[in-house]
């Protein structure tokens, strides 16, 4: 039982830090740390820089161009990237469709798609949810009908994140209506440039365009874009949902946001003293820090155990999701609360990287501007990726056997 990192792990951490110092563009980390809007180009540029280093796909096996790092190394990398202000690597290609392609795709699919994920040239998005099927995914109705050498797809997907930039979408589609609902689902890869696809923005409550509806009208998808076998898509979908593991707790990002919260509370004053010296507010920070300390160790316990392959992933993934999202939400709420009056203004232009700040407002109003929006936006974290209610169902039913 040892909570210290080994010498090798510490050296690895130094290596990651050195890389970040040398290669992470300041204009990108400025945006991330300042809560600015991150552009497509930022995500792609960072992915390219990582790829040049050979670190484009940290969780993949080396055979597919991954690093082969163990879970603790991946955790250290995540943590350092978050702390330095690297943009998140979007999961849709790297952590979602890629493992499915590696496990169930054929060699041609693997060669076609995987390298373009690592080098950032293909932007992937997800086509799972539909207006009528959210938590109840298996009720999906988007139809794919086999006609000669292709499927014809008709239907509508929603809660599609950043699909406005996407080159490819992976979709669950219904290829049969016989038997159990789960039996008639297939897993298709669809080129977003195919005629008949329409992407319509959904504006989030913070005013941002982050998600979309995707409409399919007689969209022709070559048979070769089917993953695995027809009507077996539910198996691949469950594999995908159960696969993403490191990073689900978001510990690295939450540690960064905790640091930011403390900085804000040290800057904002009340009765002439820094807010952090107000015991009532400091106790609130302390309480969320306790949660995060516990989660960091729980997370390490989970990934260490998995790293040793001693057992299959357990209820821990759901615990990490629930606690991770709750902590993100608490942090964003306290950041907003810390601002006092400056939690109120909605200054959209402050989300632009080149916003010069406003001479009218006090200095801290600059970093303040995005924070209430973040609080609103982060309500999604207990909803997406299987709502926290679904996670509690999983814990109680799948694990506890209730």
């Amino acid at each position: 039982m040892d909570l210290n990192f080994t010498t090798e792990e510490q050296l690895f951490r130094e290596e990651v830090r050195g890389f970040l110092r040398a290669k992470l563009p300041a204009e990108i980390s400025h945006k991330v740390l300042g809560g600015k809007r991150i552009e497509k180009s930022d995500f792609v540029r960072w992915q390219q820089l990582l790829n040049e280093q050979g670190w484009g796909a940290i969780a993949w096996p080396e055979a597919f161009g991954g690093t082969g790092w163990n879970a603790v190394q991946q955790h250290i990398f995540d943590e350092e990237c978050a702390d330095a202000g690297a943009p998140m690597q979007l999961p849709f290609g790297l952590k979602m469709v890629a493992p499915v392609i590696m496990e169930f795709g054929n060699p041609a699919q693997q060669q076609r798609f995987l390298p373009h994920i690592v080098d950032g040239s293909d932007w992937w998005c997800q086509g799972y949810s539909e207006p009528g099927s959210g938590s109840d995914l298996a009720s999906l109705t988007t139809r794919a009908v086999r006609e000669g050498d292709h499927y014809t797809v008709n239907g509508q997907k929603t809660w599609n994140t950043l699909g406005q930039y996407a080159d490819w979408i992976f979709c669950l589609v219904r290829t049969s209506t016989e038997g159990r609902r789960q039996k008639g689902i297939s897993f298709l890869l669809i080129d977003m440039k195919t005629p008949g696809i329409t992407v319509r923005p959904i504006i989030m409550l913070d005013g941002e365009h982050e998600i979309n509806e995707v409409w399919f009208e007689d969209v022709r998808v070559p048979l070769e874009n089917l993953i695995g076998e027809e009507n077996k898509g539910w198996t691949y979908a469950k594999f995908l949902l159960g696969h993403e593991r490191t990073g689900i707790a978001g510990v690295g990002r939450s540690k960064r946001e905790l640091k930011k919260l403390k900085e804000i509370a040290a800057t904002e004053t009340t009765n002439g003293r820094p807010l952090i010296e107000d015991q009532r507010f400091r106790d609130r920070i302390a309480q969320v820090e306790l949660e995060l300390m516990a989660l960091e160790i729980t997370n390490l316990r989970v990934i260490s155990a998995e790293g040793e392959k001693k057992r299959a992933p357990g209820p821990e993934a759901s615990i990490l999701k629930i606690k991770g999202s709750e902590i993100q939400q608490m942090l964003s709420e306290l950041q907003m609360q810390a601002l006092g009056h400056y939690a109120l203004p909605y200054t959209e232009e402050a989300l632009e990287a080149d916003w010069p700040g406003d001479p009218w407002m006090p200095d801290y109003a600059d970093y303040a501007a995005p924070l209430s929006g973040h609080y609103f936006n982060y309500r999604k974290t207990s909803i997406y990726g299987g709502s926290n209610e679904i996670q509690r169902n999983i814990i109680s039913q799948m694990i506890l056997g209730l």
Partner: protein
Amino acid sequence: MDFNYTEEQLALQDTLRRFIARDYGFEHRRESAKSTDGFDRSAWKTFADFGILALPFPEGFGGLNGNAVDTMLVMEMLGRGLALEPYVSTVVLCGGLIRDAGSTEQKETLLPAVAGGELMLAFAHFESGSRYAVDHVATTATANGHGWKIDGAKAVVLGAPSADKLLVSAKDGKGISLFLVDAKIPGVTLRAYPTQDGARAADVKLAGVQVGADALIGTAGNALPAIERALDYANAALCAEAVGIMSALNEVTLEYLKTRKQFGQPIGKFQALQHRMADMVIATEQARSMATLAAVRADSADAAERSRSVAAAKAYVTQSARLVGQQAVQLHGGMGVVDELNVSHYFKRLTMIGLTFGDADYHLGRFSDTLTMPHECF
């Protein structure tokens, strides 16, 4: 002990309810928020016609002699409609300040104009760095031959962009004074912006602003008690607004639970969601009780009792509103975090109410500090 509205109050409530339902729908509200003013000037005129802009003023000055319970009733309805009009700024805060601290002449000039909907006001009081401390004013007022010269900066002044005049608090030698300052005169500069809930506010700079002697509201250096009262009154009004929103949000959420189907049944059949909804209803009923307390006590002559009750109510209502707002969003799933439905707008307004004129911790602290004194329970 009487928890009923009077006949007149019920009639006014009914009028407002019908107005909100018929003329102040969600799409109308969205358009108003996008307009230059950020609210609907014709609605403001209607408010004048309804008499609610005259509500809290004495009859002698064009008012209706209403009390804080009347204001509660109005605010609850404005809450249901997510009304954007700066009612609290103009009527409750500034109107109340002029009523309580102004000279007879000032009341005669200003209150009928507010009541008639011709004059809009904003209360420029809080400053950056002071957080919620009511008695912290760094802005200065210096007496000179022409009256007063005012210098300073005010933070996040609600309703300022549309205000004809500002009520500015400033420190002279003796204490805090209030000045009526035309928003357009030299030295006054506004940086206006929308707020997170779709309303409007501004940061205000006052650089060598020269006003006449008659700009002073009441007497010099004595404004703090009136300011404290006005903010208590405003917080009581915000409690009522929050309760109106919470009721509406519960209705919307209940409807969603009954109609949204997953796994072959309405999601409202799931016990975990049923219990969540029950907790939202409980929180709303309890919040309504506290908003009632705040309204009744906002008119109290005993300042300590008034402040203690309003602090208690604002702390509690904010906590309840947090639960109801967050859970209404959660129960709506993805539909809770999009701009399209009113759910997220109710949620944002509830959140901002909780951060306006003191957050829950600030008010909990005010209340907690009174605990060493003996009191009956409410």
